[in-house]
């Protein structure tokens, strides 16, 4: 099996889906000739032509709106928002149109569309190129939100998202793009949306995470094993709908739960995960549910030392796990 990077898994999934189904097309800022600012769509315009790889104006509301219209018409658009930070002008289209289309038309129309957006910090992107925006959409019924952490999950879940009959927000952590590599099958496969994945088995502390911070958790788990602390790691993979069953199962496994995400703590996905555990697994809890998240400050600082302070890392994760293990 080939070892490829996270970003190559995105490209591979896009190419294979465009080859498989001619209704699939890409639109976004600089996705064509430029090949995308991260080079995700590099070469696709040559292979599929400019009718299927559309360079759009710098208007996110139009990107989302066009994609919604095309999807209702029977196409399978994959819209790219260049940075998740820029998704705000498209919120009305996504929340009030895409998410509600099936419901308000009583099932007559639906939006089989994917909106891809790179999110997260750690790349010196400062305040407009580092935000985590998943929590803003996580309370919107009608949307699905996928945030994979490994190349294998990226390919399988992006393919599943493109084939899904309803709108899917597909958040790719941009720090993972070239940092994270992994084995990815060359053949066609999909992974179920809405299913979390146990990335590591353990008995002392359960860590529930997604995206970049999941890798911090896995590294921390590796190192803490030498201290005799056994860490169970659950990758949420899908944030909406959350895999309640897997969350409760993972929580019950150790009775001590640490939820980690880069998005800030207040109103983050971690709060919802914690509430599910509190509702379903009180009598299996051995410690207060803990959250380790980005700070509640308006934006990612540009100053490198401050960005480092903002971002989670292996040491911060280790400390939090250790603290919970000793409780």
């Amino acid at each position, binding site marked *: 099996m080939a070892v490829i990077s996270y970003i190559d898994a995105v490209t591979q999934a896009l190419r294979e889906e465009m080859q498989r189904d001619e209704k699939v097309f890409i639109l976004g800022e600089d996705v064509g000739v430029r090949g995308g600012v991260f080079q995700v769509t590099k070469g696709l315009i040559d292979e599929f032509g400019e009718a299927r790889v559309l360079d759009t104006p710098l208007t996110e509301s139009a990107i989302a709106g066009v994609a919604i219209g095309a999807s209702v018409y029977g196409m399978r658009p994959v819209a790219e928002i260049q940075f998740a930070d820029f998704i705000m002008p498209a919120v009305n289209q996504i929340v009030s149109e895409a998410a509600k289309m099936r419901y308000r038309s009583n099932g007559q129309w639906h939006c089989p569309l994917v909106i891809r957006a790179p999110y997260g910090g750690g790349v010196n992107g400062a305040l407009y190129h580092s935000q985590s925006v998943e929590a803003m959409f996580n309370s919107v019924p009608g949307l699905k939100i996928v945030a994979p952490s490994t190349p294998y999950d990226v390919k399988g879940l992006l393919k599943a998202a493109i084939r899904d009959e309803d709108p899917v927000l597909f958040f790719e952590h941009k720090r993972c793009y070239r940092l994270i590599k992994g084995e990815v099958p060359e053949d066609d496969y999909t992974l179920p949306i809405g299913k979390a994945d146990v990335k590591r088995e353990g008995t002392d502390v359960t860590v529930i995470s997604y995206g970049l911070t999941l890798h911090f958790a896995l590294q921390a788990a590796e190192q803490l094993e030498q201290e005799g602390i056994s860490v169970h790691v659950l990758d949420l993979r899908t944030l909406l709908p959350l895999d309640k069953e897997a969350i409760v199962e993972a929580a019950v496994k150790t009775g001590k739960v640490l939820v980690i995400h880069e998005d800030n703590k207040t109103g983050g996905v971690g709060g919802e995960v914690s509430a599910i555990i509190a509702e379903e697994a009180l*009598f*299996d809890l051995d410690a207060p549910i803990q959250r380790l998240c980005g700070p509640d400050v308006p934006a990612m600082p540009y100053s490198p030392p401050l960005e480092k302070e903002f971002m989670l890392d292996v040491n911060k994760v280790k400390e939090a796990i250790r603290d919970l293990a000793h409780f």
Partner: protein
Amino acid sequence: MATDVTMPQLGESVTEGTIIKWLKKPGDKIAKYEPLCEVNTDKVNAEVPATVEGVLKEILISEGTTVEVGTVICRIETTESAAAEAPKETGASPEAKATAPVSADKDKRMKNRYSPAVLRLAQEHGIDLETVEGTGRGGRITRKDILRYLEERSKEKVSTPSETPTLVETVPVTEAPAAVSVPSSVQAPTTQAPSPIAVEPGDQTVPVSSVRRTIAQRMVTSKHEAPHAWTMVEVDVTGLVQLRERLKDEFKQREGINLTYLPFVIKAVADTLKEFPYLNAVWGGDSIVLKKRINISIAVATDDALYVPVIHDADEKNILGLAKAVHRLAEKTRAGKLTLDDMQGGTFTVNNTGSFGSIASQPIINYPQAAIMSVEAIVKRPVVVNNMIAIRDMVNLCLSLDHRILDGLTAGRFLQRVKERLESYGPDSQI
């Protein structure tokens, strides 16, 4: 510089120790690991070794004094203190680290703060949390501590056979209507400390459910508190059997439920209890409480548990009313829908052991009631009637009584009256 020497933790559950004798006095030179004093705890006697080399500077705890683990008992002036500053400082930090866990051990503030998981496991497995050592912060008992404790408990082997009273005793006893047998000396209840049981490969360990645990505790309480005596009479119910034969089809059609013998027995008991208030009584320590209401508890078994729901004011009901009450309670029990009200207020228990073919049983009193009666299976037997051998339908009634409240005479008279009532039924009786 001086190093503190603390009372060590000698054994897992030890929290304090007594200084028996100081082996060194202030000013003595001390080598590392040299014994400083003798300490006595409730588990062991031991010597406390020096943690550093130096000179004993001062003794803080005098002989014969008991102090908590972690308390500073003496100070040693270390040899390095005379040396240069730099090595002294580097030497100090590992010491500080070494003493840190000791002071952490002393901190037991979280020892009695239990998480939901710990409480649940303790209840499910009947663990006395006071006996579990906590390894969490502040001495907190973690879920893992409980799981470890359970693992160790299941590994323990039997040293002596368990003397826990058994739950069901069915002892055949020769008939002796007025005589009562007094149970042998009573043992202390042992439900709290589970006795070690050998679990061998292939054995299955079934966790004790809360219902099972309640049953166990009630049974042990009854056997422990109430001196049980036992007696039995045999009753000729040929007439009753004929009566039921005549009525049962019509009854079933009219009322929708089966007509069994149990309502007849309950009615005979309820009526007789009015004549013998001491059987409808509870032991109140320095008094005996004779209950006014006659509320009959009936034992209803499910696959894994035993319930004793109550027919309140059974003396006010006729056969039909009792039959319906029995039916309703049995249905509710099997459906798991008994309410607290259904379970409370019983003054006497009737146990239908005949339903599973038993012909004699020695029931355990439904504490704090005065007595319990079991109805055995009705069987056809050759019996001498008017100097002739006849085939009659016979049933044994067995009574266990609290000998503090009752003596054999009253109990025997009670059974005789119940017997008379049941034998008075004939094929043409009205119900």
